[in-house]
């Protein structure tokens, strides 16, 4: 899973497979981080309140 695992090999299979995995995780992580940060900012600015 990580390059420091002893069975890790720097070959195409690992790069493609783990690259895809970390890419997906990064998108999800950044996406959620964006949502949370924006929500915190909006809340601080007094937006929202459940009445739409």
């Amino acid at each position: 899973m990580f390059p420091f695992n002893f069975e890790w090999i720097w070959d195409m299979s690992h790069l493609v497979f783990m690259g895809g995995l970390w890419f997906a995780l990064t998108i999800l992580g950044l996406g959620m981080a964006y949502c949370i940060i924006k929500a915190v900012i909006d809340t601080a600015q007094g937006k929202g309140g459940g009445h739409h």
Partner: protein
Amino acid sequence: MDDALFPKGVKRCPLPEFLMKLGPVVALLIWGVVAMLMCWIKGLNQTNMNDAYGFAAWIWADLTVIALGGGAFFTGFLRYLIGKEKLKNIINFAVLIGFICYSSALLILAIDIGQPLRGWFIFWHANVHSMLTEVAFCLTCYFGVLTIEYLPLVLENRQIDRVPFFHNLTHHMHEVMPLFAATGAFLSFFHQGSLGGVAGVLFGRPFAFREGLFIWPWTFFLFTWSAAAYGPCFTIMLAKITEKVTGKRLIKDDVYDLLAKIAGWMMATYIVAKIIDTWYWATVTAPARGMTFMQFYSNNPLYGIWILILEIVIGGVIPAAILLTRKGRNTPFALMTAVVLGVIGVCVNRWVMVLQTLAVPVLPFEGWPMYYPSWQEVATTLLPVAYGIILVAFSYRYLPVFPQEAELNPIVSEPAAPPAPAPDTDAEPADAELSPAQA
């Protein structure tokens, strides 16, 4: 009692009645939990699996719920990436079903492995050449996506939504949802396929083995395709059942029609591909290994040619034919028949790819080992069903799962009733005001 938690403009039964009705389901859940604990504490000797059936009911259940849960990724794909806006009225439900299916699959896997505490080895010591590794990674990631997709729905609960932070978070999550849905679709295309690859790469098992493209056997593509075809059928089937149980119409017919039509086309093309695949396997792949087609379907008490007919004709050709016709889609009985047959078809497909694969004797001097699940296996397989019913029930009661519910079921007694109902129209314009959270 709990009225304040209900979504706006909808009616729900009293809480005691609701809880009473869930009683039998909770009993089923407890039975399943007991069996699960027995498997964890006493080990897999509690099952009827053996060295001939290393994979059995659980792996079948896993493959099946993931295929059936495919409705979530495919509906999301259609809604967010292809732009089928109409599907926003069923996407919440599809996501909910997907969430249940995938969490169930993970739970079953956690019971199924011999050393559950070492489950993380599949990530830590990953063998990137194994289809199962790919399944584990994508399945876990996609479960994360489904959680992200389900979360806004939970936050849209009337009381939670009053909290400004949650309201804002929901808003922004909807904004980014196409990105999450795209990631989910990407992950799903791979893990659905890899589940097919799990069987397809077994070159020691002539019943399952298939040639393919690069590292992917044909079953890889067939599984993704079938999940996209049959997953929406399961979503439609459960939505219809939910309508029956609640005694309400929850989704407009045009939404069903669109999803059923797409599922029909996917199913029709899939079943053609499946027939070609079966034909090639029966005439080229298996004979190259010295085995005749009928060897896989004879000399045993269960697996006859009937199972192939059930899977391909009854569970594939017939439902596809029904779903491809407007009349079929618009006749409630025909639609229900089609989606039920479709669900049976995909269940049978997953069954044969797991169980029959192992049942077919490969050493010429061995016979067909037969298997039936122990009660612990049955109970743990039903556990997700019970859990699913409970989660659907609670979600339906407290969350705005069905954006069209209020419009289709106006509360007449209230003085300030919503605008005039339009129960049977295919009109779209009313949607925006009905579903603020979805907008």
